[in-house]
């Protein structure tokens, strides 16, 4: 008896919301990056779960691509954080507010 897919979805939603919680409550840009990783992996869990649900390998392949893209995203994100630090002497995201009105 295989596990019902909605439990995977619950797991995924929990991971996503934990990541979101991190983004909403933290001010450190590095922690932002970690939280985003968590949210991406929540999506991966979804993909794999539905791959199993429909017996189709596409979801699993897709999650591999997502991981590759996550690597790219982290590379760019780290670069942005470096620039942020250089300009604001800090990685606190609430301070980088000079482009608002």
């Amino acid at each position: 008896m295989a596990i019902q897919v909605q439990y995977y979805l619950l797991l995924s939603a929990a991971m996503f919301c934990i990541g979101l919680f991190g983004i909403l409550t933290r001010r450190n840009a590095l922690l932002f990056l970690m939280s985003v990783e968590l949210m991406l992996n929540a999506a991966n869990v979804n993909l794999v779960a539905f791959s199993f649900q429909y017996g189709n390998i596409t979801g699993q392949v897709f999650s591999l691509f997502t991981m590759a893209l996550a690597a790219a995203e982290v590379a760019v994100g780290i670069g942005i954080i470096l620039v942020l630090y250089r300009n604001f002497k800090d990685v606190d995201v609430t301070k980088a507010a000079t482009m608002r009105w």
Partner: protein
Amino acid sequence: MAAEEIPLVFEFAPAIAVLPALSLVVALFFGEYFPKKGAEAGILATAGSLVLSLIMLATVAGGQTVNHELYTLVLGVSEETFGLHLGILIDPLSALMLTIVSLISFLVHVFSMGYMNDEGETGLPRYYGELGLFTASMLAFVMADNILMAFMFFELVGLASYLLIGFWFRDAGPPSAAKKAFLVTRFGDYFFLVGVVGIFATFFPATSTPGMFAGEHAFPVVAEHALAGEATVNTFGFEPQTWFTILGLLVLGGVIGKSAQFPLHSWLPDAMEGPTPVSALIHAATMVAAGVYLVARMYGFYALSPTALGVIALTGGFTALFAATMGVVKQEIKQVLAYSTISQYGYIMLGLGGGGYVAAVFHLTTHAVFKALLFLGAGSVIIAMHHNENMWDMGGLKEKMPVTYYSFLSGSLALAGIIPFAGFWSKDEVLFETLVHGLGTPTASSTLLLIGYAFGLVAVFFTGFYTFRMVFLTFHGEPRTDTAEDPHGVRWNVKAPLAVLGVLAATVGFINMTPVAELTGAHIEFLHQWLDMAPEEYLTNVHHYTEVLETASHYEAAHISPLAPGAVSLALALGGAGLAYQLYGTAAHPEPHTEKLGSIRTLLMHNYYLDEFQVWLATGVTYRVARAANTFDQGVVDGVVNGVSSVSLFSGSRVRRIQSGVVSNYASLITLSLVLLIAFFGIMGGWF
């Protein structure tokens, strides 16, 4: 539009206008390098124009005319559109006018050498350039074959007059007078422009060339067919004749402005601020003549509308008397002449309105000659008097400057209308034509004509009076000042034009001696025959106009002898002149008799307070209305706009606080929105 069969000589017709235009360029840019500062270019160019005009005159006399398209401004691309073009129309009327204009402007150029160069004026290249522009635009206006081209050059004439009146722009008076002339004539031209557009809109589908003056497809002819029910034109819901009257009156607005008719005459006396040769040109040949020439040019159109004719006659007659009374009290020689010009153009308008097409053209011709003469004579006097224009400072100039005196006398006799000088024949014919049509016409417009005739007849007396008052004060008696005692001499370049014009003023009236023709039965109405020579297909000849006047306007001539009316007007003119002699000619030191008129004199000196009235219209009415409108605009219109903008400004300044620039806040908003969205869809879709 028979472009293929133009006689070779007409290929040179555009050069009549192009030559003075070239002199504009030459005088303006290279005038400094000429010994006479550009006068050479102007004289050569106008002499060339004069020669070419005389050749045209001879060619037209030989029975050849031209009416063809020269340059296409806008090509009509299909059946639904029409083209706009420049073209030339040389028929007896325009050939005559070309000759007059180029003759006068040639003489004015020569005279200018005496008036401007010898007096050491500066800015002469500009002066001669503007003179060239003035002449060129008038000549092009005269030979225009369609009303749009006429309008364009009509405006150019106005521009050139503005430049020339304001020639001495460093003084206070001339720029202001120039602006006044420009604005007042522009006010009239506005109506003219509306009329031009109206004519194009009215006659387009009916003819492919709605603006043409002459020919089977010209608008006067199409209008005539429309009245006869043979053609359909776009009359915007009016009866054709009513609509043609409206169009005619719109165009007449431009005429009234340019020809200085009441109530738009007030620019002309002020325009005396310009150099005297320019005044001569404006009054005799160009600016002012343009207005009445336009009426004569499209006479076939006006002849269709008795109302428009009546308005023209009444305006003309009233202006003739109105201006003549003001001329009575003026002290400056040029002012008297200015009012006489307004008055004389009133006569021309009266003649046109009264059905006397030939008479009006005749008076236009003779007036051009004798008024140019009088102005140049006045210019000569002004040179002699060291630019003092007040007649009370003159006197006794007769012995000192005989050439000026005798030519000026010739012009004055012509102006006053004393037999046998030019003015008598033409003015008498104008009055006679008005009278016979006024008496003979059965419809209501006869009253208008008779009123106009009465005005004109009374004005004859005033004309005789002010003319000879001017002559006696200027030339007779004893010198009243030291300058008049020892006047500045004038040279050949002043005397020669005066002599030429003096002889012409005495003789040009012989071209159409209607009373003599009537009396002897001899066919010596040369001008009548000349104007009647216009080719049949142009439909601009005199017998066609007479026909149209009879059928469309019901003008009919009463059969009375020209002798009695002629004798009456001659007696009135002599009476006026005699009164002037009694008052000013007998004493060595004449009394200022007009001061006995008391308050009437004050009224006349102030030109019936018309300037004040117009200023009051501007400041008392227009300014107040404008201020009220401004208040409304500032308060209500701007208030609404400002209200709307302040509402959005306020709400924007509040709403923008959402944009804190902090990423977390944005993320929170997105999250909350997502929660709400999912909850909404869940509830609506029954997911829970």
